[in-house]
């Protein structure tokens, strides 16, 4: 192999393959790149704690209605895709309120521990559970430091057509992937803007001209437990994280 290391040769072959993928096969016939989750994008949320009212649960209600995860009034076992967390600084007595959901980590521990590959990160950064192959072992729930995932303990009927859910599988915030794929925004973002304080914005973290990048550059943002190095896609501002 001309004395080249094997991985370099392999890379060349791959580059060749990539170049041919877009070739014109015949006049009028081209190999189109498959559509779907775009790896150039990195979907995320930015939550402004200063606009989030302590007693407001609009985002939680909107998520529940959108994805149909209303429970059985049993808080210990009911699924919970998003919840409000109130924080208090004991030194000053100042309080914050934040919605917390799956943080859509860049290095998600739930994906690392999944024994079947059901827990996965899409090319555009959205972390999901493929319930077709989830065996309900709940390792991911143990691994998640944000308590983002829930287990479905009971038989479910009347699911939403775009949000399948079933007993024996783990689930969490999907960042309303059905809306994102249709060019929309998550239900919590929409509801917070129309009925809440407009505290949540969604967008592509990789887009330097996007709302999130602009706000992040202007105000500075934090991530929950950034010391863990998981690089969540959910950013917070206005809270001492």
């Amino acid at each position, binding site marked *: 192999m001309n004395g080249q290391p094997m991985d370099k040769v392999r890379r060349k072959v791959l580059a060749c393959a990539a170049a041919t993928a877009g070739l014109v096969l015949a006049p009028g016939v081209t190999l189109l790149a498959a559509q779907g989750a775009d790896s150039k994008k990195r979907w995320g949320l930015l939550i402004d704690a200063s606009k989030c009212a302590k007693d407001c649960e609009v985002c939680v209600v909107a998520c529940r209605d959108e994805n149909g995860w209303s429970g059985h009034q049993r808080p210990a076992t009911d699924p919970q895709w998003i919840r409000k967390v109130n924080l208090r600084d004991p030194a000053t007595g100042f309080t914050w309120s934040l919605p917390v959901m799956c943080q859509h980590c860049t290095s998600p521990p739930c994906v690392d521990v999944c024994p079947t590959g059901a827990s996965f990160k899409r*090319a555009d950064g959205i972390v999901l559970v493929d*319930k*077709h192959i989830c065996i309900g072992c709940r390792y991911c729930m143990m691994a998640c430091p944000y308590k983002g995932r829930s287990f479905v303990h009971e038989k479910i009927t*009347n*699911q939403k057509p775009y949000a399948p859910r079933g007993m024996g599988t783990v689930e969490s915030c999907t960042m309303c992937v059905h809306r994102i794929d249709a060019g929309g925004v998550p239900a919590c973002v929409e509801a917070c803007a129309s009925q809440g304080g407009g505290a949540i914005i969604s967008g592509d973290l990789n887009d330097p001209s996007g709302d999130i990048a602009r706000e992040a550059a202007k105000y500075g943002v934090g991530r929950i437990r950034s010391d863990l190095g998981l690089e969540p896609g959910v950013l917070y501002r206005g809270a001492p994280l």
Partner: protein
Amino acid sequence: MIRSGIILVFLAVFLAGPPASSAEQGGVPFPVLAKAQGEKCVAPAEDMRRNHGDYLLHQRDETARLGIRGGKYSLKKCIECHASPDAEAAGAATVRPFCAACHDYAAVSINCFECHTPKASGGNPKP
């Protein structure tokens, strides 16, 4: 000997006539499928009868994992087109009777509808 046996079986099958006559001859009745609402299925009926499971399995992975939406073999579209009144769902239009017609007949147990809703959008409208 074996060869002539096979030919005999073939002849017997052909002489027995089309399968529709099975019930008339005292055999097990063939499943009766409800008429679909659409004009035409995404593929010929013979193809769909044999391969719908593979098509759905392939597309489910593309949609769930790669985010490729709007494929040809969509479970949602099956549900919309093949929904009929379902006693199990209090008369709401679901795809269950259509699926069950053959799957019960062939003792196939599928679990799509443990997670996916079998209801057509009329029964569960998108907000």
